């Protein structure tokens, strides 16, 4: 018997006669888990302003740098962030619309650079797919304005632009907006470790500086 068949037959023997007949008949195909009580919160009513305030508060708690701005001021905010960082050469996903950058700053569209090449950039600028206010989480899904996963991983600086209409309150609201067949990265602050005496240290292998620009709706 193949290992596959043997493990499956062990499982069937272990769980007994009801194996193979999931609750609710066809529900398996529909992707439900049978009789699971879902009495937890799946929505939280809040204004965009409240959500953005909460998200900003959580991100600052993770020691990310947060800047609130309006659509009209976005270009200035990006320029200010890059100047502050003294970034000269940044990688950007091919589908990201960027305003004019400050003189001396070069934005290079990702062309499938190797990891070593990405290591030579001063940072990356991307948009986001969804953000979760209660947990301070930004989610990237690999869309054209976010790019492949490596560009926000290898360079030491990530500048992420989040629009107010992308912010939800709760994790379930975010999960229901996302597609599982896309590569997803959930980011809650810069990389960190608590492995030494449980003392939190920001910045290990991922970008050590996370800069978030939150763009208000109006």
């Amino acid at each position, binding site marked *: 018997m193949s*290992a596959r068949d*043997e*493990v*499956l*037959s*062990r*499982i069937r*023997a*272990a769980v007994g006669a*009801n*194996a*193979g*007949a*999931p609750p609710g008949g066809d529900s*398996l195909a529909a*992707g*439900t*888990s*049978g009789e*699971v*009580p*879902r*009495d*937890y*919160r799946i929505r939280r009513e809040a204004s965009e302003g409240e959500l953005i305030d909460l998200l900003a508060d959580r991100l600052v708690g*993770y020691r990310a740098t947060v800047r609130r701005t309006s659509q009209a001021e976005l270009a200035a905010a990006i320029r200010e962030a890059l100047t502050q960082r003294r970034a000269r050469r940044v990688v950007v996903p091919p589908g990201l619309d960027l305003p004019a950058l400050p003189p001396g700053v070069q934005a290079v569209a990702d062309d499938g650079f190797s*990891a070593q090449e990405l*290591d030579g950039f001063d940072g990356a600028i991307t948009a986001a797919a969804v953000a979760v206010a209660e*947990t301070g*989480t930004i989610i990237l899904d690999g869309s054209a304005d976010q790019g492949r*996963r*490596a560009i926000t*991983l290898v360079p030491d600086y990530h500048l992420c632009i989040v629009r107010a209409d992308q912010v939800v309150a709760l994790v*379930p609201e*975010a*999960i*229901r907006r996302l597609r*599982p*067949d896309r*590569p*997803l*990265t*959930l*980011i*809650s*602050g*810069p*990389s*960190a*470790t*608590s*492995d*030494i*005496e*449980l003392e939190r*240290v920001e*910045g*290990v*292998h*991922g970008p050590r500086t996370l800069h978030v620009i939150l763009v208000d709706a109006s």
Partner: protein
Amino acid sequence: MSTNGDPGAAPAGSMTFLGMPTAPRGVGHLRGSEPFPVAARRGLADTQQRRNLAKATASIRAKRAAVVGEVPDWEELREAARAIKAATMAHLDRYLEQLEAQVTARGGVVHWARDAGEANAIVVGLVRAAGASEAVKVKSLATDEIGLNEALAAAGIQAHETDLAELIVQLGQDWPSHILVPAIHRNRAEIREIFLREMGDVDPGLTDVPAALAEAARRHLRRRFLSAKVGISGANFAVADSGALCVVESEGNGRMCLTLPETLITVMGIEKVIPAWRDLEVFLQLLPRSSTGERMNPYTSIWTGVTPADGPRNFHLVLLDNGRTAALADETGRSALHCIRCSACMNVCPVYERAGGHAYGSIYPGPIGAILSPQLTGIEDNPSLPYASSLCGACYDVCPVKIDIPSVLVHLRARHVEAARHVGLLPGPEAITMAAAAWVMASPARFATAQRAGRIGRALGRGGPIRSLPPPLSAWTRSRDLPLPAATSFRDWWRRDHQPGKAPGQHHGEPR
């Protein structure tokens, strides 16, 4: 319960429970070289480790309590998680088949492994096929469980642990003592010593400031990440209906291993599957708060098969049994498979805090290890673990998926006694004591009499705890102190203090 396993196909030397082969001996890290009481005594004598552990567990308990306290629907989330896991176990075969189909449809390759040896052989073969002689690894309990690093080394393949704590453990030629913070038994000064001695490329002026130690690890691993051809990971969750795999981490070493190499090999226990995409919304809320005491961990990666022009070109998923079906066959013990490896139970456990993780002998220490390891190996190979608990119940209270660990411990003790009787061993003092206690507690009159008799025991303690009882009860006190029996039992005190017509609170005597 059916027992139609095929013992003929079981690897030589492995045990079975209800016909299900358990994890084989001689490979992996599920068995200690000595019983828990012996190993625990050494842990107790290690004052440095006890100090490190007391500080670390107290700090993480406080963090967890704060972030759990702010979630208004925490109990509803726990109940949903419990129900999802129970439903998964009841139809595990179907969900695994569905996961396999989804991963395959999206360009991944699924492998099945009956046990540790088979899983190791699969991974060794895949690394060789990729033409690599080294691999970068994300912290993974499943690969620690099967002794993958040793198997790779034996095949001439070097595995580099990249999680900071796992790196500390690997460089120190040490063994993890906690599932979340494997180097919890090491303090900063010890870690600095290990780095200076083992890293080779480290600045000799390295201080023991945690930020400086983390920076040293970043430099040490950076080149490896950027040039690695093969990454090896575990999985926190695998979603059956979509084929999505999920790894939860903090440092970014996980993202490096999951994203940069051409080939990714993920080893996961078969119990890690969850049925539906939206089930993730439950676990992604429960796990970080229970584990690191954060609202969310810094990085979570979710991927499905192979994505064109993003991440690895080859993805292999190894589904591991290694005794899990033996646990599944025990309807009570099965809930140990619900564990999402958060480690909250060890952080609240008074036994773990004092004995330390190494005392459990298995890669799974603490309360969850005490119920998981004996089921994976067969109780014969870990007979002392179900007794490594005072049954205080703190582990159950904090478990994010509501595993009733105390009840499973008691159940496994009964199984142990039953197994010992089965092979013709005389019942030990513990079995006799438990049987006698059951008889006494079954009748109020017998219980009252026994309690009065127990007061005589005060003479043995001379005002302090009783350190040793006369045989055969010495078997009990060999590894425990017995508290001095109360001068007045609760029942006697209640009767005296709550006589009809007397106002409550008029004390005639203290309850003790």
